[in-house]
């Protein structure tokens, strides 16, 4: 298989078929917490995408050039979290500087990317699948885009739910969870694309 075909496969896989939120149920906290409005959801999605792509690259470097040669594989989790935390701090600074409105609307969820398991998940999956640097970057970037897709779709649904006539008991969070579940089922439709 050519490199390009291989990368395309990884991209489609991590974005649609094995979507982090919809198929692996990673990153549910921001997915439910920041999906109230399309604008903030987009901001959050872009931030997560950026962090996931960068984290994939840096964690791959840390793993391949630092941990693996020294036989310190058991330090993977803590080292990766360190990398991710630093990255998130960096992203936070950039957003605060260039888009204070987005910074305000993301609120507490921005630092929460640090503990977002989608980010740590992509980093660890890259290593477990023995991906190359390019493959890791693709996996991270498209995994993030998959998250962006899911959260923006969810925000669109929730904006419409605002005006919908929902039974009293299901208003607010319950209907959101039901909508998320239905979206996950819909994403199952992609599962035949890749063997």
């Amino acid at each position, binding site marked *: 298989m050519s490199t390009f075909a291989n990368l395309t496969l990884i991209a489609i896989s991590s974005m649609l078929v094995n979507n982090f939120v919809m198929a692996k149920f990673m990153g549910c906290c921001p997915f439910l917490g920041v999906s109230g409005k399309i604008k903030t959801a987009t901001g959050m999605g872009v931030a997560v995408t950026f962090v996931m792509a960068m984290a994939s690259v840096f964690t791959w470097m840390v793993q391949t050039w630092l941990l693996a040669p020294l036989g310190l594989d058991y*330090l993977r989790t803590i080292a990766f979290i360190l990398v991710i935390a630093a990255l998130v701090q960096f992203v936070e600074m950039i957003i605060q500087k260039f888009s204070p409105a987005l910074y305000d609307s993301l609120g507490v969820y921005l630092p929460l990317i640090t503990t977002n398991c989608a980010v740590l998940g992509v980093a660890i999956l890259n290593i477990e699948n023995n991906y190359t640097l390019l493959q890791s970057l693709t996996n991270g970037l498209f995994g993030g885009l998959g998250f962006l897709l899911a959260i923006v779709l969810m925000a669109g649904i929730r904006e419409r739910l605002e005006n919908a006539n929902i039974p009293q008991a299901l208003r607010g969070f319950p209907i959101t969870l039901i909508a998320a579940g239905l979206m996950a089922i819909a994403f199952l439709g992609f599962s035949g694309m890749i063997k």
Partner: protein
Amino acid sequence: MLESFLIPAAIIGGLGLVFGVLLAVASRFFSIQGDPRIDQVRECLPGANCGSCGFPGCDGLAKAIVESGAPINSCTVANADALKKIASLMGTDAGEFKQLVAVVACRSNEQNMHVKYNYQGIEDCAAAAAVCEGYKACPFSCLGFGNCAKVCPTGAISVRDNVAFVDEDKCIACGKCASVCPRGIIAMLPKDAPVVIQCRSHSRGKEVRESCEAGCISCGLCEKACKFDAIKVVNNLPVIDYDKCHGCMQCAQKCPRKCIWLDTAMVKKAFINDSKCVGCGRCKTACQFDAISGEIRQSFSVDPAKCVGCGECAEKCAKDAITLIRQ
């Protein structure tokens, strides 16, 4: 042997150090000049992060005050001194500051209440309210399981004799109790309110008589007794407009059910200082209770038995000769 400890520690420590330095450089590079007043205003706020101002915590309010000109008295918790300090920081006037306090408007204690049935379910107001509108006959009664006391961050609410009671000194007016009460009978009222209506029943008089000994029967005597147009009976319940209320307490005196609470500490009497009085007689015309007597161009005097302390005379006096003295 030692390497197996040192190398991992050095690796992780080194990584941390590298990232720390990078972040420090980045923070210098991307630094933002914040308004220093935000921190100063934040210092003056109570820091309880109760959210009753409508902003996300005290930080949010401090930012809103400095950047978007939110009213300084948005904070219901801070005392007047702190607000004055913020006002001086912002170079504005603090505005009229009204400290609020939560009031449980119900007196259906064991003597007063009529019981519909013996409730033995979950000890929770919302659960009790869901069973046939509660075990007390009045659908607007306090159920006394203390959902309000559970959410109160300062422990100001206690349940006594089947009715919740708010300790005014501890209440910070965050309004959490009012939002959690399934009966909606907790109101946020001015702390210096001279009279408070202690009933929330919108039922008609006959129904109230049958369900409670202390409920408002919407007879309207308070509305008639008020000479300042401050009480209106709306939907079978009197509503006090505290902006118009002069604190004469005539409503509370006239209430046949004694369900208007009056602050005995606020009972006042007018007193005319003879040395300042020029005998213009404005006070006499202003008095709606016929408590002032005297002759024009001579001095006037107040009859303490008739004076209710509404303060109309003091407002009208051009020579500042009338003072209101608390009894």
